């Protein structure tokens, strides 16, 4: 199991729009490495007769009928928003300076 590199942490941080300081890159690289290592231990006990799964429950086809249910009011929907304008969620500039 190869170690998580600083570059990988920096890349993930950019995708998540997290501003990490140089020393934090090393700090999180070590932590992520530990997490990946811990999860990888599952592979040690996985046997050939156990198919990989992505879900804890052995269920399929859980559907709901196509029926309309009550929505929130716009006031309720927007009540937790840091900023609102014209009935809409107001968000900061999307494209930053990085371009």
């Amino acid at each position, binding site marked *: 199991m190869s170690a998580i590199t600083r570059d990988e942490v920096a890349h993930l941080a950019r*995708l998540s729009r997290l501003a990490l300081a140089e020393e934090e890159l090393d700090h999180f690289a070590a932590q992520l490495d530990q997490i990946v290592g811990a999860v990888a231990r599952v592979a040690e006990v996985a046997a050939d007769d156990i198919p990989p799964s992505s879900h804890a429950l052995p269920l399929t086809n859980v559907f709901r009928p196509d029926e309309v249910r009550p929505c*929130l009011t716009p006031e309720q929907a927007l009540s937790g928003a840091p900023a609102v304008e014209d009935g*809409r*969620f107001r968000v900061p500039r*999307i494209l930053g300076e990085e371009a």
Partner: protein
Amino acid sequence: MLWKGWVITMADPMTLMPYEEALARFEPVLGLETHVELGTASKMFCGCQTAFGAPPNTQVCPVCLAFPGALPVANQKAIESTIRIGLALNCTIAEWCRFARKNYFYPDMPKNYQISQYDEPLCSNGYLDVEVGGRTVRIEIERVHLEEDTGKSTHVGGATGRIHGADYSIVDYNRAGIPLVEIVTKPIPGTDAMAPEVARAYGIELRELMRTLGVSDVRMDQGSMRFDVNVSLMPRGSSEWGTRTETKNVNSFRSVERSVRGEIERQAAVLAGGGRVIQETRHFHEDTGQTTSGRSKEEAQDYRYFPEPDLVPIEPDPAWVEELRAALPELPSARRRRLQSEWGVSDLDMQAMHNADAFDLVEATIAAGAPAADARKWWMGELARRANESATTLTDLPITPAQVARVTVLVASGALNDKLARSVLEGVLAGEGGPDEVVASRGLQIVNDEGELSAIIDQVLADNADAADKVRAGKIAAVGALVGGVMKASRGKADAARARQLILEKLGVTE
């Protein structure tokens, strides 16, 4: 795939190579991704309604706003519609598949990810045949998968209203979570100069298919059907495909056609100038018919797809799939073949009716009692002319197939001739009522009274003694002027053939 990237490239200098020259030097390869919003009553993973044009953020709930703890549950009708689309496109339906989480940082989804499908689409490996210029082109379908639509952002500030240069954005999540089907073709080589037309024909055929299946309202003006158009070029004689570009959110068939053409001209100029086509998304501009650079494409792995943990896998029961297959309606291509043989019309006439979107109208007119040839004649003749004059479409003309059928019946019974029938149609279109009302109010009845007709003819013969003498002397061709005189005197209401017969009788001439 809905794509969000971050690297902006500057607008490139636009050099184009003339289309014919571009085609002589390069072979285009097409690819089309189509997004279709399903017409379900409720959203993909929650019970919010899906009406278009509702006031902002009135069709949202904890699930589609991604409030903590809210969990999605898949809409069965949306799964069913996607399988039906797959079946109609001759796809294999997955025996087992999952939703996937597509992660990206962008506020059009409040979750910070979109629930989509990745390497396990619901339907794969199908095809759709389209007819272009008398040739059938088989478009191979790579996959049909189900995902959720995103919210609608409005960018505020900046000169253009676009995301670039905006100060901030405001977001309406009514559309977020509406079921969205993505239909992806395999690369389509071998279309050569027809590439733009093939792309357009595919779009039209696909829309017709969606309509026939009744899975979407396919309103392109409302964004419920939209295209991403991929184009690449390879030098003639080469077998290695070039780098493709993807023109996003093209939302009319004409634009699909023009964007393919424009991109062929642009890429040819880049390649011929020793340049390199950059893999990127591009924007189509209606005014120039050209595309400009959008953003360079992020690596797919940057989306960090993984199986959606909040939803369990889909395992369509084969018996259910077969039921859906058996219940598919007659598909557009089969219907066209049937209609053509029933109506006995040429390929050219079929193409004209197809282009005019006239099949439903003609079929309904025949069902309402019109002879097939007459139904076609009136819709594709006089009514097509009227629609054209008023810059509208046949389907939007204020006349019903039943009314057109009534006019054909009146003509067939001899109560109207073609000229009077045109006048009746004019009256109906002008809102003067149904055909019978217009006949009555405009006094448009053929003169069937022999006495009245005879009197008119006598008057015309008296007024046109020269012509009458010529006919008596054996110059039968001169009778045309006399018949014309009778039609004029009767204000078009005489039966021309009967008038001609009577004139010849009165002049003692036999043919």
